[in-house]
């Protein structure tokens, strides 16, 4: 999770330091709550590590680099799942980010007032659709459509078929289908957050730009987007966090094949999916431990991806996070 400062705008000025007992008590209470969250994360990590300790001892670091997943011979490796998770999440972001931010810009800067609320409600309704329903829609509607039109277009050697990314026989279910369903699932969160952030850009910014004779596009680009870029980046990171852990819907359309292939039209597999698929029927100890370790890898991957994002955010805005909070 990125810290809250990434989303909220900087608060101007200090509050007087708390002095009364009620304030102190409140401070302690909130500190306690904040620590609970930290404790929860630590406990989850510890539980996953404890559950997978046997597999960690048995496979060592090789687990992260092995491409074998063979429950019969008890050989387990996480690489194809890590690859599938990263690729499907990245594809999801690639599709969802431009759509979400464009929607947010339209809603805050351009849309007539009567149209705003209906669109906002619709986007939020999208977030309320259960994952498994989206997955079924994915199998029966989205995948056949993707297979028939976009995939056929991409595969055509006159278009993009010459790229290794779009080669090979296609069955519809694929990494790209997984990425597309991820995009549908993270669209609402990125759109809502981005809209909140754009709404919170002070009107003074816009007025100043208009006063300088900027066009609407220039106002949006210079006054609004550059002002809000940190917040928007934070919204994208939150979306990425969700994308990494999306399970049911992705499982239903990604093809569930633990292989690494260059083509995005080939099936893949994700960390979350293999846990959901195999946990209930795993009977041997090593098998269960390996699935626990997959959970641990997903947990670590989420943390690492978020850390990288935080670092990028710091570089990107040219100042430390600590200062922006003040």
């Amino acid at each position, binding site marked *: 999770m990125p810290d809250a400062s990434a989303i909220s705008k900087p608060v101007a000025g200090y509050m007087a330091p708390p002095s009364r007992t009620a304030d102190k008590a409140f401070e302690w209470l909130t500190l306690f709550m904040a620590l609970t969250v930290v404790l929860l994360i630590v406990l989850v990590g510890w539980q996953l590590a404890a559950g997978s300790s046997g597999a960690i001892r048995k496979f060592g670091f090789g687990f992260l680099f092995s491409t*074998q*997943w*063979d*429950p*019969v*011979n008890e050989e387990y490796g996480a690489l194809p799942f890590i690859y599938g998770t990263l690729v499907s999440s990245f594809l999801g972001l690639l599709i969802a980010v431009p759509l979400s931010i464009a929607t947010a810009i339209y809603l805050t800067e351009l849309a007539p007032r009567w149209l705003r609320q209906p669109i906002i409600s619709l986007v939020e309704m999208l977030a309320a659709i259960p994952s498994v329903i989206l997955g079924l829609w994915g*199998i*029966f509607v989205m*995948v*056949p459509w993707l297979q028939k039109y976009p995939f056929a277009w991409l595969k055509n050697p006159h278009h993009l078929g010459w790229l290794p990314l779009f080669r090979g*026989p296609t*069955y*519809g*279910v694929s990494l790209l289908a997984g990425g597309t369903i991820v995009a549908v699932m993270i669209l609402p969160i990125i759109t809502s957050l981005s809209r909140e952030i754009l709404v919170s850009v002070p009107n003074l910014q816009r007025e100043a730009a208009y006063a300088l004779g900027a066009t609407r596009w220039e106002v949006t680009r210079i006054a609004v987007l550059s002002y809000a870029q940190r917040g928007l980046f934070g919204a994208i990171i939150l979306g990425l966090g969700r994308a990494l852990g999306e399970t049911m819907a992705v*499982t*239903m359309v990604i*093809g*569930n*094949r633990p292989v690494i292939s260059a083509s995005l039209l080939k*099936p893949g*597999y994700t960390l979350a*999916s293999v*846990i*959901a*698929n*195999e*946990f*209930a*029927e*795993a*009977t*041997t100890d090593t098998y*269960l431990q390996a699935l626990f370790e997959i959970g641990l890898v997903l947990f670590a991957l989420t943390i690492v991806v978020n850390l990288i994002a935080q670092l990028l955010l710091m570089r990107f805005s040219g100042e430390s996070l600590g200062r922006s909070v003040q």
Partner: protein
Amino acid sequence: MIKTNLLRLSTLCLLGFASAAFGQLSITGAGASFPYPIYSKWFNEYAKVDPSVQFNYQSIGSGGGQKQILAETVDFGASDGPMSDENLAKAPGKLLHIPTVAGAVVVTYNLPDSPALKLDGDTVAGIFLGKITNWNDPAIAKLNPGVKLADADIAVVHRSDGSGTSYIFTDYLSKVSPEWAKEVGKNTAVKWPAGLGAKGNEGVAGQVKQTPGAIGYVELIYAMQNKLSFADLKNADGSFVKASPEGVTAALSAAQIPDDFRFSVVNAPGKDAYPISGATWLLVYEKQKDAAKGKKLVEFLKWAMGDGEKMAPNLDYAPLPDALKDRVMKRISEIQY
């Protein structure tokens, strides 16, 4: 998954308390999902036979069922595959396998005009190994004289989730194909040499329906209820058999069943035996710790072997053959409480 399991456990506990408050004995079980429809039917019907006891069954999967009965957090477990020696050794007491009903797995396909196909073990194994890749392969043509087979790629679809269905299917392939046994083996989930994974019977059926030239396997019950076309299979006696509950019962009658009831009936002998058949089991300790619960559990099991079995065909499950039922009944009466 852990979270949902915990959630289910806590629901179990709540249910337990609730029924205790009404002076009703509550017996809980967990495990296999394949027999869930018939088990819930049984528990509903049995509530009319003996209102003083309430059964709660959670279909959390065979792996979960085995784990929970080993940890003694439930009164009985349920599994679609027999327990391994390794897991049985972990049990704090002698754990009995009580077979209840049986089912079959069928090979379903999507070909233009849905011709009726005949397949044998070698061919099915070849297809799922990725060795036979086109429908006009001579191996398929030889088994289906007179059927016009399209020149189309075969798209293999298998279950992505661990399941008893996959166990029975891979058990069958391991028995009919030495190459499969060596390279892949049998389990609730395996390293599939070819094809794509789809979640659940509905996922496999959906994927097969949408992909021309696809082949997959689903439970017979699912195929019958959804009117899928499936292949006749050549059994150990060399005759082609259409999957049906009767074919499964025939396989059970012909198979050699060991005394601990940990059996596999795939590729069973007998003219009418359907080759990809398998049973499902309840897991019960021989020495029951709680006398009151033990007594009720034994009464229920006896009822299930009698009146319960009669309900099986209506739900498309295969009942156990009479000879086996008698043996199981004898074992049930040996449970101590």
